[in-house]
């Protein structure tokens, strides 16, 4: 693979694209939101189960390109079991990383996976693909009604 593309499409990212984790509806979710990227038509639905300030389960449906699908998949793995405060911190870190700031994730194997998206910030046209699931997660958490869009 061309080296510049290998940096974007890392094997772990492609693995999550080909075999997305937690891609299913969560029937007992108590927070949900839909996200939409009108530029490419990508659509994601996030389901959260929050119990006593802990994200006890998180799943998604939909997706689209490799980056948006893998981002949603890795996100679900990252957030499960986190407190709401931790989840919001992670969201901020991911956002900082995707907008080109240097971020060090803790020695948590699930969090370290997020670094697979560190190359995305060099592709401005693709940053929204990676942030879609996260913005939708934030909307679900805040229980904003309606659909989130990247525009």
């Amino acid at each position, binding site marked *: 693979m061309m080296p510049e593309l290998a940096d*974007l*499409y890392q094997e772990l990212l492609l693995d999550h694209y080909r075999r997305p984790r937690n891609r299913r509806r969560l029937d007992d979710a108590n927070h949900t939101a839909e996200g939409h990227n009108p530029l*490419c038509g990508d659509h994601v639905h996030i389901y959260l189960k929050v119990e006593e300030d802990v994200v006890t389960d998180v799943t998604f449906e939909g997706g*689209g390109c490799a*980056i948006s699908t893998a981002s949603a998949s890795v996100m679900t793995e990252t957030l499960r079991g986190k407190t709401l405060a931790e989840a919001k911190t992670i969201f901020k870190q991911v956002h900082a990383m995707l907008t080109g700031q240097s971020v060090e994730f803790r020695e948590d194997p699930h969090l370290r996976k997020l670094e697979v998206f560190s190359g995305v910030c060099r592709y401005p046209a693709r940053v929204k693909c990676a942030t879609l699931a996260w913005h939708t997660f934030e909307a679900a958490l805040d229980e904003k009604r309606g659909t989130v869009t990247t525009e």
Partner: protein
Amino acid sequence: MTRTTATQPAPPPTAAAAFDPYRWRADFPALAQEIHGRPLVYLDNAATTHKPRPVIDAVQRYYERDNANVHRGVHTLSVRATERYEGARAAVRRFINAPDSREVVFVRGATEAINLVAQSYGRTHVGSGDEILITGMEHHSNIVPWQMLCEQTGAVLRVAPLNDDGEVLLDEYERLLTSRTRIVALTHVSNALGTVNPVIEMARLARHAGAAVLVDGAQAVPHQPVDVRALGCDFYVFSAHKTFGPMGTGVLWGRAELLDRMSPYQGGGEMIRSVTFEKTVYAEPPARFEAGTPNVAGAVGLGAAIDYLDHVGRCAIAAYERELLAYATERVQAVPGVRLIGTAREKASILSFVMEGIHAHDVGTVLDQMGIAIRSGHHCAQPVMQRFGVPATCRASLALYNTREDIDTLVYALARTREVLG
């Protein structure tokens, strides 16, 4: 001199054989650059075309020498600017074989032209329970203005469906034409599928049913001769920037007897004959529809683009592109996992496709790294994507300066894409 639909006879093969795209390509400065270290292969012409040197020069020369407001002053620069502006209008008249320059209205683009017709013609000719008929392959710009008109008037939007090749089902179209149909709006060439609609036949049926016919020519004029009289439509619209001219300029052509009876779209300077606080008398078309200072440089640039196309030869362009599209179709179709979206018998310029298991956006990113510009997305035609059950497609769209070499590079890159993302 020309007819422009499915009924157009195939140009003689010699026309395409004699065409040298490398000669014309040299006229386009933006094409001579590298992207990520590789020569640019520009295949996003349906989004916008690049501009040849004579167009860039004409715009620059206008600002360096002739710049002034038009139809206003008696000073020399104003006279010159007015001559340039009206000269461009005359060039557009010839370009589409319109009967009269007064039928040529300069607007911002095809989108504004359609909105103008919807609001000016539509608001006075369409009422509650009336119907507006479009096709299933329209660009959002030929859907949304009519939906807005329907909301305002209580009219109903009807849509003629497509077959699996991306052609309008003509018997369905004919069935949907009723005594309630006031306006038929259809694209000449589909931006998402490449389908060339049989406009002459469709316009004839529509007018027989008593409807006015608007044709969106944005994707047609860069690729083939257009004759609005032969098409038999009432309105024809296009954008300068998709036909080698500047952004921000477009054309509405309308039959004089319709324009004469239409109300202004916007109020302001230029569009009046006399103003008092009690009453304003509107100017005759086209000034009636050109409120405010127009984009004179844009019109001048469009005029230069038209001269350039005439110089290259529009029949020769059509013949060359027909051959290039056939080559591209054959080569791209042979790439494993590629499925074409839009396989109409009559097509122009556009190759829309999906790659099995790979999203169009990822294809677009990989191709960009190899210097190739295509469009990936829904092409402002979401209903077309829904019709074919895909979220997005990759679209390679050709222009007169594209070569077989460009297609070969694309095909090579698509194979590499499968290696990267397969």
